[in-house]
Each structure stands twice: as structure tokens, then as C-alpha cells.
């Protein structure tokens, strides 16, 4: 599978294993990986507790967490000079543990953009800055935060993960409204021996996390770029573009026009597409073209349309088959290959059975009588017109 499809524009990977070679290596590593994985699950729980007990300002915390996350296979390295006076960092977004890597190097808070329970948020070290109440509220609370709290804010203005190889998504502008002084940093992720992608399009965060725990180690390099200051007359947008350009230049990639909403949309489309392909491969007789399931309310109408072109098949049988396939094209094919039988005497016999006492039976009886009534009148009508 190529990593560049029109759907992803090369911004997102579609396959965890960029090369066949990686695939083989991972297969060989699998038994060891599983053991490491299980051990790490327990280690991870301890790390979690440690992270909760040692608050972010604690001096010991950095050391303890770095050792523990190294055991978990996450190594954060840093280069460049961090500017202690800056209150807002901006970074590109390449994996679900980006903020953790930055946090290991320089304790910081990531404004939570997810609607998760407060306890979980506290455990993960996110800050609730009222994103859900709208952007204005986020900016207001973020401004308050950087004035009152020691911890700087980390912003991932792409808001969606990319593979970090082709281009950056369009930055959202809120971090640039919060502060005029911003230190950009770039994140690069590498995995020695196992070149497995940190995230692929449509993957959920827990899948990505499991890969972190499974592989021997992942190195996330944080490179601090020189602090940037918004000029007196510079607009928010142009400041934003300048910072984005600086990050893109450092990473050697371009800026794209894709927003995080586009990324989410692309992921959704990609998921649907793969699902469709999977269904199509499972049943080779069905065409792989896009098929839309029929609304149950329209099934009668569709059954009648099929009857028009396949008059020998009983309406009742068409309708019942539609119930199963929920697709006009598949039912037509089933008629052609004989799965759906033409009018048979058996159908007429079943009409004679006496109704039971439950409304459920009444309804299926009604359906049967309905199509038989149309069928019979149709025959009578044709008979009459032949005689004429």
C-alpha cells in the first residue's frame, strides 16, 4: 500500500509499516515484544501513580519520570536552548504522546480539547481551559493561566496528527492570541530498528499508545527554536504564519492548507473506504462501486422498480430479498443468478395459512397479502388487456 493516496495528500500514513523489511522484523520481534508489552503495562501503572504523586513543579519529578518513561520505551531528547521566560510553546503534532515528551523536558500543561472526565484529565496533566465553551473562553482562560501559574502552556496548533514528513496542517490561531512571545519547537520521532509509523490515518489514540509500549524504544527529539516575538503592527495571522513557517523550515517540510477538520474528515472517509473494500473482498460478487443502503421507508418503492424490469419474479420475493441485502444492485444480481426465485406455487400456498393471534404475525401476513394483492391484480389487468 502506498503512503501517498489522493485521500491523504501524503500528510498521513496509511500503513504502520513503511517497508516490507519492517514488517518482517516486527514479526520476528513479536514474542519478545509481547513480554515487554505485558511488563510495561504494569510499569506504566506505576509511572502513572508516580506522575500523580509528584506534582509538576517538583524537582524530583523530572528525573523519576524520565527514567520510568525510558523503561516504558519513550525517550525524550532535547536540543537547542529553552527559553525559561516564555510562557507558550508551539509544536508540531506527530504522535499521541507529544505533550508527554515535551513535558519530560520542560514541565508544561496542554489545554485539553477533549471532553474527558475531570479525573482523567487531572491524571494526564491536561488543563481544562474551557475549550468547550468556545474559543474566546479558551483564550481568556489561557491568558489568565500564564499570568498566574508557573507552568507554561504547550500548544499543538495543528490539532490533528500528521506523519510529519510532507507538510504541516494549518495552525489554529489561539496560541498566538494568548501570548505575543512564543517559543516554537519541532518534534521528530524515530524508532531504531523498527521503523513503525507513530500514527496512521484513522487510528485511535490507544492503538498508537500500544505500539509505543510494544516496540523496544521510541525516541522523540524536541528541538527548541529561537523565541519569536510578535511585532508591534503585525497581525495575529501573519505572526501565526511566521511561526508555522519557522517550524516547517526546521523540519524541511511545507505548509499545507489542510485544517484539522479536513484531517478528521479524511480519516473518516479513509475508514469508510477501507471498510467498504473489506466488505467487497469478503463477497466477491458484489461490485466495489459505492453502494448506499436503502432507507427502509423506500424499500417498497425500490421493490416495485425492480419488478418493472424483472416481471417474472414475485414482488414478495423481491421485497424479502431487499430486506436482507438492503441494496438494489445486489438484489438485482441475486435475481439474475437465480438466488431470488421467480413466482412459485409455494408462495401462493403460504397465503392460505390462517392468521395467528399476535400482531407480529398479523404484520407479516399483511406484507404477504399486500404483495400478493398487487401481483394478482397485475395478472388480472394484463389478462384483461390481452383479451382486449
Amino acid at each position, binding site marked *: 500500500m502506498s503512503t501517498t493516496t489522493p485521500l491523504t495528500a501524503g500528510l498521513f500514513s496509511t500503513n504502520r509499516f513503511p517497508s516490507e523489511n519492517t514488517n518482517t522484523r516486527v514479526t520476528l520481534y513479536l514474542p519478545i515484544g509481547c513480554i515487554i508489552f505485558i511488563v510495561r503495562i504494569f510499569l506504566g501503572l506505576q509511572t502513572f501513580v508516580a506522575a500523580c504523586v509528584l506534582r509538576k513543579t517538583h524537582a524530583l519529578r523530572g528525573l523519576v519520570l524520565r527514567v520510568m518513561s525510558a523503561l516504558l520505551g519513550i525517550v525524550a531528547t532535547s536540543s537547542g536552548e529553552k527559553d525559561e521566560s516564555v510562557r507558550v510553546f508551539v509544536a508540531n503534532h506527530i504522535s499521541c504522546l507529544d505533550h508527554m515528551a515535551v513535558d519530560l523536558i520542560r514541565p508544561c500543561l496542554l489545554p485539553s480539547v477533549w471532553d474527558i472526565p475531570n479525573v482523567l484529565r487531572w491524571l494526564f496533566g491536561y488543563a481544562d481551559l474551557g475549550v468547550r465553551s468556545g474559543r474566546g473562553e479558551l483564550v481568556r482562560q489561557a491568558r489568565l493561566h500564564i499570568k498566574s501559574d508557573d507552568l507554561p502552556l504547550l500548544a499543538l496548533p495543528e490539532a490533528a496528527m500528521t506523519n510529519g514528513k510532507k507538510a504541516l496542517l494549518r495552525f489554529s490561531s489561539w496560541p498566538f492570541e494568548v501570548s505575543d512571545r512564543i517559543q516554537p519547537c519541532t518534534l521528530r520521532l524515530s524508532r531504531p530498528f523498527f521503523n513503525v509509523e507513530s500514527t496512521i490515518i484513522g487510528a485511535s489514540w490507544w492503538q498508537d499508545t500500544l505500539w509505543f509500549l510494544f516496540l523496544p524504544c521510541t525516541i522523540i527529539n524536541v528541538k527548541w527554536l529561537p523565541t519569536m516575538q510578535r511585532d508591534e503592527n503585525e497581525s495575529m495571522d501573519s505572526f501565526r504564519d511566521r511561526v508555522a513557517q519557522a517550524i516547517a523550515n526546521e523540519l524541511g517540510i511545507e505548509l499545507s492548507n489542510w485544517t484539522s477538520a479536513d484531517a478528521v474528515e479524511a480519516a473518516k472517509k479513509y475508514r469508510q473506504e477501507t471498510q467498504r473494500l473489506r466488505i467487497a473482498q469478503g463477497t466477491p460478487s458484489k461490485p466495489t462501486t459505492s453502494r448506499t443502503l436503502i432507507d427502509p421507508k423506500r424499500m417498497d418503492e425500490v421493490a416495485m*422498480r425492480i419488478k418493472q424490469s424483472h416481471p417474472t419474479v414475485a414482488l414478495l420475493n423481491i421485497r424479502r430479498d431487499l430486506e436482507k441485502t438492503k441494496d438494489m444492485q445486489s438484489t438485482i444480481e441475486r435475481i439474475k443468478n437465480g438466488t431470488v426465485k421467480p413466482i412459485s406455487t409455494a408462495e401462493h400456498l403460504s397465503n392460505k395459512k390462517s*392468521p395467528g393471534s399476535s*400482531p407480529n404475525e*398479523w*404484520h407479516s401476513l399483511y406484507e404477504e397479502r399486500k404483495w400478493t*394483492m398487487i401481483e394478482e*391484480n397485475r395478472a388480472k389487468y394484463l389478462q*384483461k388487456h390481452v383479451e382486449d
Partner: protein
Amino acid sequence: MAGYALKRLMTEYRELTLHPPDGILAAPVDEENFFEWECLITGPEDTCFANGVFPARISFPQDYPLSPPKMRFTCDLFHPNIYRDGRVCISILHAPGDDPTGYETSSERWSPVQSVEKILLSVVSMLAEPNDESAANVNAAKMWREDRVKFNQIADNLVRKTLCLPLADS
């Protein structure tokens, strides 16, 4: 109130299922909602609507059978007493108080002793004998009076449509 309506509709449903009148079928659209029915009416023999199977919807009010239900054909039907949107204009569906046309006597009106079956039978006879004095579709009424051949032709095509037959050339 709705409880009584439900009980009554259930009784009618049973009756219609056990002893279906000729050429008429009716049942709730789904088991969840007994106040919305689907029904089929066969066009009466020896009329221009003969052998047509016309689908319609009946919506019952919560205080049924005190108030009459509403009926609407879901297929195209060109008929003097059927509005363009399929609503049926027939005296049995009107409560004694309101009379949109002024031509109806109150004995033909809705009352709790009427039933789904009686409504459907009235509609069948309405199909056979349009009442062009209280027209819901003025064009249809006019054509019915003045150009019966063309009216029959339109009716025939509507019948063919309900039977999944290709339209006849006019």
C-alpha cells in the same frame, strides 16, 4: 384517552386481519406506532381504476374514535375528490361540526361507530363514483365531466404505475 384509542385500533386491526374485506388491506406501519396505518385499496371492477392497487396512509388522532382519522394517498391519484397532495376529501372523514363543502348531510359524517373498514369501503365507492359537486381537484372534476376519455386514459396510466407496468402510450 390514548389507551382507549389503542385498544380500539387493535380491535379493528384484528378484525381486518381475520376477515379482510375484498380488495382492501390495512395495517399499522410498524408495531411501535399504532396511530399510523398503511392501507391498500383496489380500484373497483368495471371502472377506470379497476385492478389498480392504491397505497394510502391513515393517521389517527389520540382521541380516536371521537375524532376522525386523516387519510392521504401516497401514490399519484387524479380524482375529483382527492387533493393534489393525496388528501382524501370524503364526508366520512369530516366531523359533524365542520363541513368544508356544504354538500354533506350529517348522516354521512364521522362518528365513533364508523371504522377503518367503513372509511376504506367509502373510498372504494368514491373511486367508482366521483362526487364532482364537492371537488377537491377542480381540474379532475372538470375533466371527469367534459372529457371522460382523457380522464380514463390518465386513470389507466395511474393503475399501470401501481402495478409496476410500463406506461401506455397516449
